[in-house]
């Protein structure tokens, strides 16, 4: 499981750090490294880009896992370079950005957009498999999630936009409900597809979602 990110347009980054001359750069050694958006190489590229723009990069680090509790310790090691910076430009997913923000009393700017939680199929190809909706229906759908795999997140079967097993929004995308149908049929469990699925509650865990593990 990885938090999938994409670099923001450089113009947007430039706009967000406008007026801030000294920048400290932070990457992440986990998901953003695997997706090649915030690893050592990408941080080095960003450093060069900032310098070409006339900014001063006071230092940089790639935190092993930016979203976990060790981040505070990792940042302490580079405290001097952070102290002299006007802002921190973070090349991790939003989880890491928020973690860093909670320790540092300086502007923290995300360099990436966080897209989804995905798994890697073929090398470098990631796709979304779970929306973390709080009411798992995989037991009814042969292990294929209709919330994420169906464009409309439908619970009671395919819409009229399905065509030869493909989705109306993209002819390259499989129709989730055709896949669910085929797998349930193979397993002799089509009765599950005939079962009515009620409206999904948006109040499973009200936002912001929190839980305390005993």
């Amino acid at each position: 499981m990885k938090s999938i990110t994409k670099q923001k347009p450089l113009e947007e980054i430039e706009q967000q750090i406008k007026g801030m001359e000294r920048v400290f750069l932070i990457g992440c050694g986990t998901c953003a490294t695997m997706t090649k958006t915030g690893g050592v190489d990408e941080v080095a590229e960003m450093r060069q880009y900032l310098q070409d723009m006339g900014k001063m990069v006071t230092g940089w680090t790639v935190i092993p896992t930016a979203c976990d509790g060790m981040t505070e310790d990792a940042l302490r090691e580079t405290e001097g370079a952070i102290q002299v910076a006007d802002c921190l430009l973070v090349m991790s997913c939003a989880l890491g950005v928020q973690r860093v923000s909670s320790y540092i009393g300086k502007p923290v700017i995300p360099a990436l957009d966080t897209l989804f939680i995905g798994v890697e199929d073929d090398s470098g190809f990631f796709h979304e498999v779970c929306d973390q909706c709080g009411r798992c229906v995989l037991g009814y759908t042969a292990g294929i999630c209709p919330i994420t795999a169906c464009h409309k997140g439908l619970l009671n079967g395919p819409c009229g936009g399905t065509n030869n097993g493909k989705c109306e929004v993209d002819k390259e995308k499989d129709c989730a409900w055709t896949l669910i149908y085929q797998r349930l049929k193979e397993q002799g469990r089509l009765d599950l597809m005939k079962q009515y699925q009620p409206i999904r509650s948006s109040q499973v865990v009200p936002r912001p979602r929190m839980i305390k593990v005993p």
Partner: protein
Amino acid sequence: MARNFREALKSGEFVVTSEIGPPKGTNIDGMCHHIELLRDSVDAINVTDHQSSVMRFPSIGGCLEIKERGGEPILQMTCRDRNQMALQAELLLAYTRGVRNVLCLTGDAVPVGDHKQARGVFELDSVQLLRAIRQMESGTDLGGNDLDGAVEFCAGAIVTPEANPIEPQLIKFEKKVEAGAEFFQTQAIYDLDNFSRFMGFARKFPVKILAGIVLLVSARMAKYMNGNVPGIVVPQDLIEELEGAPKGEALNKGIEIAGRMIARIKKDSICDGVHIMAIGKEEVVPDIIAAAGLG
């Protein structure tokens, strides 16, 4: 209109519906003209709900215009743009204004339309919307609260008899029937033998089926639909028939084809009626009805 749509369905007579698309903007003259044109020649008029995810004047607005002109509207309601509160509120409004027929649809995906940046809601799907209507009829809303004045609707849904694979569509059809659908208007059908096979299945259920007739205006349109519109298959012989029409006569050929299909559906009692979709050529719906010998 002497009888309402539900009475027409129950009469056992051949039922004819058609549809209008509201305008993009506040100039409703064209829509009102179409209403006047269709009002007395069909049993009910559907009003599309931001068809193809293109933002327009609302379906309920078109339905109110039909009511004011003495016609019988069918409110098309998709789940794309409203959450459950908004859907229920609109049903309350519709009922109080005499709009008593609802066609429940999932709705096209947002990215196929003209507001690609918009958020698709899809909190409910078409099956859940049908159930929501039946629940509101029993006097409570989806929050389980009592309604001060319930609703009552003739509720329907759609089905795609040409879908491939067909079985998932049939499963959903059955779920819609169980959820309370009284009638179905189908996606466009052209192959009547295939449609008859579908009817062999559908006849087992206590619902009325209106076959979807989409007017073909040219061979080019037929080919486009084959390549781009899910669930529509125009057979090669119809494409050739359109291609063979003299220059400028393709539309008349399309009217002839639609009329011929409707006449055969009625003669052979294949289903309970037809839903004519002229998509932009509403002017000729009366001609189609005349070509079918129903005028």
